[in-house]
């Protein structure tokens, strides 16, 4: 028998007229997995999440969260979901602790010790008024309120925006703990590197349509990245295009630029024969990396 999916979208559509919105989204997130929801800004990630949370209503189709209908059973869904909005706005007049106490109370007396523990892990001072906090610290308040009642499903919209790298690391450990307890995480991002270490699978959304669902391992093998090498004695006159994975190459002065698909190992082995003074590796850009696989740029 198959377990109830944590999230199930059936032809989920939100028509906003011309540009934004989502169209005919079919998606299933397995209970217990960390699912990355990737797409460029404006692709419909937040719209999808707000549909799941019942903040907005679908034009067509429907969705289930934890086996319950997002419209008729929304209150029960939200009891078991932790949510972090993409554009976080908090009650600036409250302190972190007051905010957690307020949410704990309207959730039905959730004990606050887990929230306090999370504050310690994220190095957040909960006694300060939220209005006085930096953007990164506000984001921590948002994370703590999403995690504090140990929800069965976490829906996090761009969770790491504004967090410094050390705290991001701690956040990744919080996600790992959640997954280890068999709970589900639905994580949206516009940066592949943010989800590739955490997620088991990713869904890619573009212009409101789901263009692919992939295992992260499979995705990584398709990643396109660009590399630059600066050679000591000018760019060697070699035929780079023959090397496995190299999609494109050109050189300016003593610097060679490569666009590589999948593993960079064959290229590195080939280049290692020459004297290299500098290497620059660019973050694989989601848009150029993946979207070209799945759909032609429809409207430029």
């Amino acid at each position, binding site marked *: 028998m198959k377990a109830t999916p944590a999230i199930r979208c059936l032809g989920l559509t939100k028509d906003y007229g011309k540009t934004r919105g989502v169209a005919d989204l079919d998606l299933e997130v397995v209970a217990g997995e960390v699912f990355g929801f990737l797409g460029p800004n404006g692709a419909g990630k937040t719209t999808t999440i*707000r549909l799941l*949370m*019942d*903040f*907005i*209503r679908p034009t067509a189709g429907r969705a289930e969260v934890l086996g319950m209908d997002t419209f008729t059973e*929304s*209150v*029960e869904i*939200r*009891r078991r*979901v932790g*949510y972090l*909005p993409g*554009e*976080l*706005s*908090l*009650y600036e*007049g409250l302190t972190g602790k*007051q905010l957690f*106490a*307020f*949410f704990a*109370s*309207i*959730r*039905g007396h959730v004990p606050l010790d887990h929230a306090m523990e999370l504050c310690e892990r994220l190095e957040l001072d909960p006694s300060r008024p939220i209005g006085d906090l930096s953007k990164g610290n506000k984001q921590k308040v*948002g994370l703590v*309120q999403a995690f504090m009642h140990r929800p069965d499903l976490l829906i996090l919209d761009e969770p790491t925006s504004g967090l410094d790298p050390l705290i991001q690391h701690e956040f990744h450990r919080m996600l790992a703990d959640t997954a280890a307890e068999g709970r589900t995480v639905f994580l949206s991002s516009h940066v592949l590197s943010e989800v590739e270490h955490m997620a088991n699978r990713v869904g890619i959304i573009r212009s409101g349509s789901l263009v692919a669902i992939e295992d992260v391992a499979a995705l990584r093998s398709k990643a396109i990245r660009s590399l630059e090498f600066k050679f000591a004695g000018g760019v060697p006159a070699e035929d780079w295009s023959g090397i496995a994975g190299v999609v494109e190459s050109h050189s300016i002065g003593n610097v060679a630029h490569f666009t590589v698909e999948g593993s960079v190992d064959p290229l590195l082995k080939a280049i290692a024969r020459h004297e290299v003074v500098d290497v620059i590796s660019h973050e694989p850009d989601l848009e150029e990396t993946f979207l070209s696989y799945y759909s032609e740029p429809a409207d430029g």
Partner: protein
Amino acid sequence: MGSVWSKTLFDRRRALIWWGIGFIVLTAGIISIFPSVRNSPELDKLTEELPAALKSLIGERSLTSPIGYVQSRLFQLMVPVLFLVFAIGQGAEAIAGEEHRKTMDLLLANPLSRTRVVVEKFAALCVQMVMLDALLFVSLFLLCRAFDLQLSTVGLAAASINALLFGLLFGAIALTLGAVTGHRGISVGIPTAAAIAAYVWESVTALVPELASYAGISPFHHYVASDPLVRGFVVSYLAAFMGISIILVLIATFTFSRRDLQN
């Protein structure tokens, strides 16, 4: 701070204290100068000679009588306007304000139905206004004793509640507009314009006999006509104000539960 309504009160604690101080200062300032007004019969002569348009501004009774004085200086305009300002501001804040500041998503990520949010926000508005109204009544009651204004306690209580329910009606309009549109400007602007129109209409119908039979369109007319300082509690007026407010809040819960939240 265990619920939406108590959190709203918590947020409002400082503002409420200032409003309370304002009400005390206003009533003390006005009542404390009554003894000198009482001994100025020439004031009544002056007001008798006023054109009708200005008379309607101060009510129909002698300014040197306690009832006429309290009516004209407080309940004719000042107190209802203050309640209107308070209620419209808070009514608009309840739903549209929360959406405008983009905290509604976060609030509704909790297991709360939208109906419950509307009802609790309205309850918070009512509780705030009752607190201010109680303060108004108590300070008037004590000041009238201190400065020897012979007014019936029931009349004072009825006038205070009349003003509260009149203000609350416009607060309910603001809250409902916020629930329907999510737009704070609309939620403040339309009830404010409606209140001004209601006041102007009441003045115009008092002056133009041909229009007098249409005076009842204005809630302001009913606010003044119930004459609570003299007649005490007139249930039909109070029930009408309260009933319309409740109907508006029902409309608010219905529409807010069915629309998309603002992004």
